[in-house]
């Protein structure tokens, strides 16, 4: 019996793997870095040499707990690590140390907003585990780089609360923002800092039981998740609608073709044979430790947005734009100085434009916040007009340097000397008799032209409000 496809609704859950940005790996002292030559950040422990033993990195525990606190999870005072066994050449021990039934964090959730509708997506758990190495297929051989093996990895598992690809995208975006705010991960998707497994099934609306689920493994872009889900939901609805019986399976997203493909069905699923890792003692956290970490929690975006409105007098919209990226919000706050509104404008226009046009991250932005503050101060003092300020900014961007020195070296200071400006104004009036007549006979736009001519003569340096005043004065006298 086929089911009307129009009655089928998807149920989606996400398992998100997040690399923590600790200095060292989870079980050993090797550095966590992605830019080193292959197999240079390794030791007997992270290579799984005979006799080596893991020692838990407390900083990884702290960062996982911080994440749990940010997501409103309950923090387990006692948790443990388990071994998950399967053979994979990337995995040095052929078991992954993870947390099976006693994770560090339980519950919690994230509020998302899609098309103006707010929903709360519940988190099931967060556990702390180790990342594996990376295989590369070379000509006629395989290479494995174990630098990544042992990078602390946090797995954040949602309840099956998501209903469509837009919600999944919104959830991931909101999660990423919180992780950035918590400073727990670099959140660089290109580096694989955030990877995601999707669980999705379809069933009749209001049905008691969920449909047969497919797991789509190892998604590393949010856009990919969106596209894969859109495809997979359509595929399942079409199949179930046509009366087809789905099997539980693991699927892979083919980004080029834009389709998911079956990797293995439940019958071939691994039996991971979890059991408590006898090399590691239970993790015990005291109330005081957890409370101490709670006190260190950073301000979350929603709260910060409200504070920006209150403290800096920004509009709710502008504050929202700024807090969307923690790095940008931090940059703005550092540059705010005496004129936060101007700083907000600069950040939202020039800074964000440059970022979107280049590969730069805000953390590497070439103009330091002090430089931007100083530039704004020059405008406020009247030394620069806004056009010239943009030129100075361009120089700072390209060559660096202090704005006052750039202005001085290049003679870019605004001319506010009444005498000099009056000279330019007089010349322009003399040279443009016809336009002057037009203005006097009521053609307002003529003033703009004259103004432009004065600015041109001053090579852009004249103080525009002064030019306007003088022009109006002179033109008023017949």
């Amino acid at each position, binding site marked *: 019996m086929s089911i009307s496809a129009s009655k089928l609704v998807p149920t989606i859950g996400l398992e998100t793997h997040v690399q923590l940005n600790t200095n060292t790996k989870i079980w050993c002292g090797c550095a966590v870095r992605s830019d080193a030559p292959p197999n240079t950040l390794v030791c007997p422990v992270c290579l799984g040499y*005979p006799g080596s033993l893991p020692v838990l990195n407390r900083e990884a525990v702290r960062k996982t707990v911080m994440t749990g606190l940010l997501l409103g999870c309950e923090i387990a005072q006692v948790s443990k690590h388990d071994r998950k066994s399967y053979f994979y050449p990337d995995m040095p021990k052929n078991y992954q140390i993870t947390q099976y039934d006693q994770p560090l964090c339980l519950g919690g959730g994230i509020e998302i907003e899609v098309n103006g509708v707010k929903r709360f997506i519940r988190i099931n758990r967060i556990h702390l585990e180790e990342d594996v190495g990376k295989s590369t297929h070379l000509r006629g051989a395989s290479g494995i780089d174990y630098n990544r093996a042992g990078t602390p990895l946090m797995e954040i598992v949602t309840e099956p609360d998501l209903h469509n690809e837009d919600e999944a995208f919104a959830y991931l975006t909101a999660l990423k923002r919180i992780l950035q705010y918590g400073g727990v991960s670099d959140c660089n998707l290109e580096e694989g800092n955030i990877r995601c497994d999707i669980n999705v099934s379809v069933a009749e609306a209001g049905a008691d039981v969920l449909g047969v689920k497919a797991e789509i493994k190892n998604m590393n872009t949010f856009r990919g998740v969106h596209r894969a889900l859109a495809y997979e939901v359509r595929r399942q609805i079409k199949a179930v609608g046509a009366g087809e019986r789905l099997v539980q399976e693991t699927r892979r997203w083919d980004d080029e073709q834009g389709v998911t493909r079956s990797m293995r069905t439940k019958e071939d699923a691994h*039996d991971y044979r979890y059991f408590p890792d006898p090399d590691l003692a239970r993790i015990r956290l005291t109330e005081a430790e957890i409370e101490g970490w709670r006190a260190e929690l950073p301000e979350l975006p929603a709260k910060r947005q409200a504070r920006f409105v209150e403290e800096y007098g920004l509009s709710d919209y502008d504050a929202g734009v700024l807090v969307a990226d923690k790095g940008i919000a931090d940059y703005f706050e550092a540059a705010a100085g005496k004129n936060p509104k101007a700083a907000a404008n600069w950040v939202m226009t020039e800074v964000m434009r440059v970022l979107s046009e280049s590969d730069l991250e805000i953390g590497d932005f070439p103009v330091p916040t002090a430089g931007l503050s100083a530039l704004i101060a020059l405008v406020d003092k009247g030394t620069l007009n806004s056009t010239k300020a943009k030129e100075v900014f361009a120089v700072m961007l390209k060559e660096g340097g202090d704005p006052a020195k750039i202005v001085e070296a290049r003679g870019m200071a605004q001319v506010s000397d009444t005498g000099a400006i009056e000279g330019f104004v007089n010349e322009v009036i003399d040279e443009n008799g016809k336009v002057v007549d037009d203005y006097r006979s009521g053609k307002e736009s003529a003033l703009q032209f004259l103004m432009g001519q004065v600015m041109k003569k001053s090579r852009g340096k004249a103080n525009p409000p002064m030019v306007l005043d003088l022009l109006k004065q002179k033109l008023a006298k017949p």
Partner: protein
Amino acid sequence: MSELVKKSVGELQGLMVSGACSSRDVVSALAARIEAVDPLVKAYVEVNVEDALAQADAADRRRAAGEKGALLGIPVAIKDLLNVKGQSCRCASKLLEGYVSPYDATCVAKLREAGAVLFGRVNMDEFAMGASTENSALAVTRNPWDLDRVPGGSSGGSAAAVAADSAVVSLGSDTGGSVRQPAAFCGCVGLKPGYGRVSRFGLTAFASSLDQVGVLSKSVADAASTLQVIAGHDARDTTSARVAVPDFGAALTGEVKGMRIGLAEEFFGVGVDPEVEAAVRAAVDHLVSLGAEVVPVSFPHLKYAVPAYYIIAPAEASANLARFDGVRYGARRDAEDPVELMRRTREAGFGPEVKRRILLGTYVLSSGYYDAYYVKALKARALIQRDFGTVFAQCDVLATPVAPTAAFRIGEEVDDPLTMYKGDICTIPTNLAGGSGLSVPCGFTSGGLPVGLQLLAPAFDEVSLLRAGHAFESTTEWHTRKPVIEGARA
């Protein structure tokens, strides 16, 4: 044969301090002894005399510079599963052919620091799985008391070398009796410290919750002085204990007056050979004659020890040995596909007993069987721990046989793993409880094979074991007897 090879650690140290001999002399004498007897005993799987002489010279220089220490200049033989930087560490397996340790185990580093000479790697059952050393892929080690018999296992090479005077002292490891049983079979002293006393960092894991580094020696005093050097908390092993290390030498008073020796009849009801039982009971009587008291105790859950052990140990082993896949080290069998490469490597590299235990462990951890086997075994383990708790509330040490029989013949039990497993009944319980144990020579069978007395104590009360063992040894002469190795070159 140089008389030096017969000496204990303590005696050799005295000779070196007085200047009567050097570490170089000791190493040279041992090298000659190895050359004479090891072709028959086959205790060693690797011997590097030149390297040992260089270490000995370094120790002699340290002594000349005024340094002192119980193990300074003393050669120590190392079981083939402990990592010594620059040496092979094959765990008596074909799979680890070609592997060279890039690091020192913590206990090895401590020996180096103390000036000991790391001389020779000794044979064992492959990956410490066995009780006869017959499961070695490298050699069949023979019992110096009867070359047709096994030396015990898995630290069979460690025991045979000490018994044959081709080693002064050796390190072994004990997961279910692997130090104490070969010590008993070969007539030497075997000490298994409490779980966590010695760091496991660098000890190739068989069953992580049971493994402990131990000492095989010619005297209780030697076991004490060696333990003194290798014991202590290690930040690289989170299961190593943060407890103070006592002065083990101070325990060697010879005094056992008032010490309560527990006797649990359950340990004698497990098919113990009458000659073994008689020797052990006589040893307890001897301790009583020295002033100790006997306290009858019971150990009701002993019957669960072997089944629980043969679930827990293989379960842990199945994961611990998963890393031996030929990808990063070891004897790789190439294939087109990496999974096939791992399969072929393991198929060719592991011996039958190792495969049997990996399969057992994989089975008991499989979904659907986990609760029936693994969880139940953990419950049995808890009951055994409780039995020890009750026992040690009533006595200081528990006296039992080490093994039901003396050394059996090579090949006798190879095809009967169950019988071999059952032979571990007396030694396994203390591993399950994390306690400590000592095996001391206490007699011989009518056939001239050594018999051992096992003394057990709570985890970090090795002091009681050493005190009782030393008092026994000082007033008996079993440990002074030497095997005659027929066919050995003079």
